[in-house]
């Protein structure tokens, strides 16, 4: 199986602090992967590098069949290439309706002029309604996103990610602030999404990771400490020492 995303020996430091240290990582086209690690292990920086927010000092990030380097692309180009990102806090456009939020995320040409002359069609309206129903917001499409509850905002953001249909989805602590029932729903959704695309979940919560039942990558001090099934890595003495032992 060829990898969809291949991160090759990247390093980055901020003011002398090595946030990422010779990190290599790869994920297949349809795979669910959990990335865990203590605070400051470089999880968020890793996502920043893949999505183009941060440039690494060295190393390379390759994406897709043609192994195109992401390092010369900006955030918007990387997003258009098919990498979606879900932030830790729900970030939706609060001043706009749920439908407008979803419409913006729909797969369509992103250039200013294409957007200016874009008209809603029966298909786009149906897709928005379908997405809203899928994330449980069917009755709320005309409400402003800012009025939704925290959990509903999380779901709206997930709906927006579904709308743009990325090939690689990076999810930052999806379970934060969710109720038990919502966590179960989220787990099921992530597992289902990973059947057709690559999903990387960064998570603190070990119970949640156990529920995902997937390959786990443990980061520590900016590099990979261990990789394998959750049971495998939790038996690793290094992992126990740096992370689980505390």
């Amino acid at each position, binding site marked *: 199986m060829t990898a969809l995303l291949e991160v090759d020996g990247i390093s980055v430091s901020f003011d002398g602090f090595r946030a990422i240290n010779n990190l290599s990582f790869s994920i297949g086209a349809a795979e669910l992967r959990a990335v865990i690690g203590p605070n400051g292990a470089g999880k968020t920086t890793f996502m920043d590098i893949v999505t183009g927010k941060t440039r690494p000092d060295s190393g390379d990030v390759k994406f897709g069949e043609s192994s195109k380097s992401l390092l010369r692309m900006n955030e918007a180009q990387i997003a258009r290439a098919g990498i979606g990102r879900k932030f830790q806090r729900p970030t939706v*456009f609060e001043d706009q309706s749920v439908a407008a939020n979803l419409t*913006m995320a729909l797969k369509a040409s*992103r250039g*200013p002029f294409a957007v200016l002359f874009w008209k809603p069609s029966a298909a786009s309206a149906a897709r928005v309604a379908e997405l809203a129903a899928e994330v449980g917001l069917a009755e709320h499409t005309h409400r402003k996103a800012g*009025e939704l*509850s925290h959990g509903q905002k999380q779901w709206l953001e997930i709906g927006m990610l579904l709308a743009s249909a990325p090939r690689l989805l990076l999810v930052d602590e999806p379970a934060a602030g969710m109720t038990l029932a919502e966590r179960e729903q989220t787990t099921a959704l992530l597992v289902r999404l990973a059947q057709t695309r690559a999903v990387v979940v960064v998570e603190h919560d070990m119970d949640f990771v156990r529920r995902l039942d997937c390959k786990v990558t443990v980061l520590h001090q900016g590099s990979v400490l261990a990789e394998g099934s959750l049971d495998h890595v939790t038996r690793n003495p290094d992992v126990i020492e740096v992370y689980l032992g505390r």
Partner: protein
Amino acid sequence: MTRQPFILRNPSVLVVLALLAAFTLAVTLMSTAYGSGALPTSTVKVLGKTLCLALAAVAMDLVWGYLGILSLGQMAFFALGGYMIGQWLMYARTEAIVAASLSGNPIPPTVQELREAVANQIFGVVGSADLPLVWTLAHSLTAQLVLVVAVPGLLALVFGWLAFRSRVNGVYLSILTQAMTLALALWLFQNDSGFRGNNGLSGLQNIPGLDGVGQARLSVWFLWASAAALALFYVLAAWVVGGKFGSVIRAIRDDETRVRFLGYPVEGFKLAVFTLAAMITAIAGALYYPQAGIINPAELMPIASIYLAVWVAIGGRGRLYGAMIGAIVVSLLSSWFTGGRAPDLNLPGYAVKWVDWWQVALGLSFVLVTLFAPKGIAGIFDRLAGILPPRRHGRDLGPDQGALQEQEAKA
């Protein structure tokens, strides 16, 4: 799904157009040239100029209210539009006068002689007799009309590209726009910049070829032109912000980073709106200065652009009609209070002279609006239309901030 026609989706556009038409008709019927003569020509000119300022405010609202860039250099585009049309007005009129005076000579003047005489007339005041390079096209109305949109558009494009590409944001960007207009003003103040230094361009109220028409009728014609431009660009602006494009630029205003991660080229959107607004502002300026009669570099000083921002803030940013109302109300009030005709306010022990105190009152109302009514005058219409911010009271139902609260949840 059938989509409602544009006007039905934006009923406010229809109201604005109807009011604008009624206003134009009323002024026409009260003008000295076409009606009862209740309004003197100077008042018609003030009203026509006010419509141009309202158009500039609509463009400012696109940039500030919708895109979120507080540009403090918008009036640079306004004045540039005025300078571009002023070049033709001044050149063509001087040419006609010079040709008339030389026609008495026994030998008719050559084209070269005529050109030199015109240059001497226009630039004698700054001690020069050559026509500067920037006046090469001044004899052609078509060329100068193209330059009215091309020069400010190009300036906005280049400035915007440099600023947005390096991701300058917020207050730094505001300072940069202010520096741009200040630099342009200081350059124009120089006698050798080719725009007659601090004398500026004058006599612009006399339209070449229309000498027999008279200012009374001309003023009404310009009012019509200003009203038509305002109507046209109001509809254009409403269309631009009404669809998905408007959705995206408001999203950029609220969370630029998130829009990038959705795959939108944020810089391209900013550049498109900034340039479009600059061109609209320039057209407003090109209609304003023939009514004002004179333009000089003082018009580009940052204070003019700051006033524009104050009008939009008081009118209500993020609502096109708000910006329009703000510009009309505040600029008319300003000219009334500073014109010396407003009666003094006699407080015990002190008489408030509005000429001195108006600036203070304006500044104070700007602060008050910003603090207590961030939606400005347009907020009143929102309230009437029932668009209210969610009323949040009671305890949170869920564990997180922002969760539904007791009174909001359905029973």
